[in-house]
């Protein structure tokens, strides 16, 4: 072949390949040039100093804090001058405590105190590091093992903050393309976990299994259009055992049946129900007699019944192990201080060795519930055995008026030596719960305490409402 042909050959190709190919190639090159030049100019366009200064002079940013408030009620919270046990000193008034979540009365336990002191003497106060970097103290492993044993699950993971437990655990599994069915009254920590995961959320009516079923059927119809895609979407159901914001118990058997039918993984926040309901205080699953393998993950808090601080998740190793590298609040936060870990271990021991505390707690809850039914100006629809009770005004009013009345009743109760409070909510809540008085019932109360509490509440409520 001579060199002449070598030059002609490429030109020949043009006649061989089809026309549309050439057009396509030309178009592609043009598009590429346009794309590159656009990116180049838009990103690296030199901003002239004049332009910047002109814009800067025009720009008036908002102040860091938009409307500073100096007299908001939250700025002067009540001061607690004592240990928050059965009794509590609120603003100098010695009260019977129905305000803090001390369901099992463990904040005053001597054994816990003794062991916590021993923990300070052995480990110091802080753990000085996250779990990965020499922050795993042997007591953490012990607590995890004990929790797993106590709840009859394979594995447990302990966090250093109750709120972050819930929000980190949810965000570790639910991702952008997933589908999460959530009760509309879930607490704020779950809401934030869902926000962090940026997942697709479908709310169903509070405690309404039928509504959930309707939504699931609707979703199943959508899935039929694209079955291949549908098999890849992870689906979750997130509920609370006993709802912090209403005091209601979830209809777990119905929900579990739906989950099995529609292939949802189920996560339960047992912050309130763990250590309070069930014969051995093992929570909602024990209460309904549902086997543990039906539930994918249980999240709980060490803050309330356990009388310590922190949170935990229990479930199968397959699920829980994942959080040790993906739970943000677990990996990137310092571990729970050893003294609080030891306190939680001791609490578990007490719970294990004294199952009668759960019975007396249940009796107290039911007794208070009966007493509340006799106060005619108020109504309480919370689950009778729930240690959290929300009491609402019988006559509905607008939000501000209800808030004002309830806080008056709360103040009047505290003046009369009974600590009952109105729960504080932020406006950022998804569904702002109706204003209420919240009662937290402890196992330590006896008959006369309960009578005293109901009578004082009745008297104060009637006094305040009669003035209206």
């Amino acid at each position: 072949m001579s060199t002449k042909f070598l030059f002609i050959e490429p030109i020949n190709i043009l006649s061989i390949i089809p026309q549309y190919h050439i057009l396509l190639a030309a178009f592609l090159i043009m598009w590429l040039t346009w794309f590159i030049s656009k990116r180049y100019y838009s990103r690296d366009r030199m901003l002239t100093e004049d332009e910047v200064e002109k814009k800067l002079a025009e720009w008036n940013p908002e102040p860091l804090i938009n409307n500073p408030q100096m007299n908001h009620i939250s700025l002067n919270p009540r001061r607690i001058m004592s240990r928050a046990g059965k009794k509590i000193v609120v603003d100098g008034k010695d009260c019977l405590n129905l305000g803090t979540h001390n369901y099992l009365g463990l904040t005053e336990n001597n054994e816990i105190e003794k062991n916590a002191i021993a923990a300070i003497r052995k480990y110091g106060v802080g753990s000085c590091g996250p779990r990965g970097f020499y922050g795993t103290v042997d007591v953490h492993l012990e607590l995890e093992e004990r929790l797993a044993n106590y709840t009859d699950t394979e594995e447990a993971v302990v966090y250093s903050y109750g709120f972050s437990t819930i929000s980190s655990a949810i965000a570790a599994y639910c991702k952008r393309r997933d589908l999460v069915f959530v009760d509309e009254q879930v607490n704020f920590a779950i809401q934030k976990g869902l926000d962090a995961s940026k997942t697709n959320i479908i709310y169903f009516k509070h405690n309404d299994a039928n509504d959930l079923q309707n939504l699931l059927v609707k979703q199943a119809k959508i899935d039929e259009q694209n079955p291949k895609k549908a098999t890849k979407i992870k689906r979750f159901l997130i509920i609370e055992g006993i709802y912090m914001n209403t005091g209601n118990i979830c209809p777990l058997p119905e929900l579990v049946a739906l989950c099995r039918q529609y292939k949802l993984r189920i996560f339960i926040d047992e912050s309130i129900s763990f250590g309070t309901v069930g014969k051995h205080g093992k929570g909602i699953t024990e209460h309904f007699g549902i086997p543990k393998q039906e539930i994918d993950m249980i999240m709980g808090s060490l803050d309330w019944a356990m009388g310590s601080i922190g949170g935990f998740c229990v479930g199968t190793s397959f699920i829980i192990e994942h959080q040790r590298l993906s739970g943000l609040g677990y990996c990137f936060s310092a571990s729970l201080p050893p003294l609080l870990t030891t306190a939680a271990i001791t609490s578990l021991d007490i719970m294990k060795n004294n199952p009668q505390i759960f019975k007396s707690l249940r009796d107290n809850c039911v007794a208070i519930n009966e007493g509340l039914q006799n106060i005619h100006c108020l109504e309480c629809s919370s689950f009778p055995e729930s240690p959290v009770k929300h009491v609402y005004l019988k006559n509905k009013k607008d939000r501000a008026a209800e808030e004002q009345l309830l806080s008056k009743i709360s103040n009047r109760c505290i003046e009369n030596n009974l600590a009952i409070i109105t729960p504080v909510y932020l406006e950022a809540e998804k569904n702002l719960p109706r204003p209420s008085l919240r009662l937290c019932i402890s196992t330590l109360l006896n008959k006369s305490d309960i009578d005293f509490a109901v009578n004082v509440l009745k008297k104060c409520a009637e006094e305040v409402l009669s003035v209206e």
Partner: protein
Amino acid sequence: MATQAITRRKLNEHEQKISKNGLTFHEDILANGHAGLQTNGRVQFSEEKTRAEPVKSRSKESFERIPFITAVLTHLGFYILMFLGFINQLLFTPKVAQEHNREGYAPLYENFDTFYLRYVYRRVRDCWNRPICSVPGATVTLKDRITKDYGWTFQFTGTTSECINLGSYNYLGFAEANGKCADQSIETLKKFGCANCSSRLELGNMPIHEELEQLTARFLGVEDAIVFGMGFATNALNLPSLVSKGCLVLSDEKNHASLILGLRLSGATVRVFKHNNVKHLEKCLKTAIVFGQPGTGEPWKKIVIIVEGVYSMEGSIVHLPEILQLKKKYKAYLYLDEAHSTGALGEHGRGVCDYYKINPREVDILMGTFTKSFGSAGGYIAGTKTLINHLRIHSHAHTYAAAMSPPIAQQIITSMKIISGEDGTDDGNRRTKQLARNTRYFRRRLNQIGVIIYGNEDSPVVPMLVYLFSKIGAVVRTLTTYNIAAVGVGFPATPLMEGRIRFCLSAAHTKQQLDYVLLHIERLADSLGLRYSRKIRDPMPIEYYSDGETE
């Protein structure tokens, strides 16, 4: 004299040559005028000093570039690991729990993630999550564990080993089981119990919290402060009440996960600027002001710059003076996360502002944690009365999460009073000085050994670069055999090529302990080939400043 002058000139020429290649120094650092490094364990060059622009932020930082051959090897090593893992996956079934009774469900985890965890990370899994059973002080007792199946499971041997602790964030040595802090915490525990089962806004607000808040505000020199029970949550749960949709946040690329989470929750637009790079930050600010919000072009509601005081993985200290100038010039706000710097930096242990001698009131939002220097747990936000009042009303953590445990709060109060000297002793002063001394000495010695270390010469966090994934494991394991506990960090926590060993210094360390550690690092550097640095090494012995001397 003459020979000295000649060597100095030679060294100088060499220095210029490598810095011209842009290999030795991080370009941006040079451009910022922080040629610095003069006393960093190397020969001093007077000529360099005069040539450099006036150093505004006293910052002496070094981010030496990775040698080309090491970069190639690191990549190669990583791919070999992945390839071996892939073969491993084909041949052997993993010894991990499987999901039961969930047939027909969408798989819970991504394939690549599980592969990476099982076949790459598992090989070095023993280097993390090591259980301890003592105070994490100057030394720490590790529970020995072995693995018989290459990292799938671990068994405790029942023995323990006491190691010099370079892993915990115990900067001022307040992790103590005895002494004033522990005693007072126990007193408080006896009086108020472990916890009070309520949030601050409900029935959890105790005088001890108020005392701590006032003390924190006084310690930092600002109007007011608010404290929370967890450092991570301080960022994650308060940023949403400070920025919102329509606000722009300029965030340093090395910011902590808690800040990133908080920003994600807030809904604000986030733009990332290069690590500690003031020029890039300025460019981002200019762009933001000129172009406004994307799409509409409306001006931003407000612009917030978020930086950390000391970056825990880079060992660098924020260039605060320059960033403050920018903030003022461009009407932005500054959020400073002092998780690792409060207590650990500055002449009086007051953090970055103290270090640069800047009035802390110039920073809009000061955030910090109590886990590190104070040997406790929790976090604070400090600033103007208006800001703190806003948080008291709108903060998620303040409203919903349990209040701080009283003995935890007491530990902070006692240690903070010691640092600030309010207890009437010079113990705090002694600790901050000791930490500064340890830091300088340790960093200079490492430079002399010839390993590459990142960050500022005053930062008590010292990352030593080992690059290769397998070297992280090798270094951590070998150091443990010599009873030294250090932390290894690799991909995905760091960029692929920048595997590193991190040392956290403490005021509790003695010179003998540091010398012992350095001796073994030097030996390791030879046996594993860690002397990557091409800077000139100081041939003279490094001095450890005695108590009387101040720098």
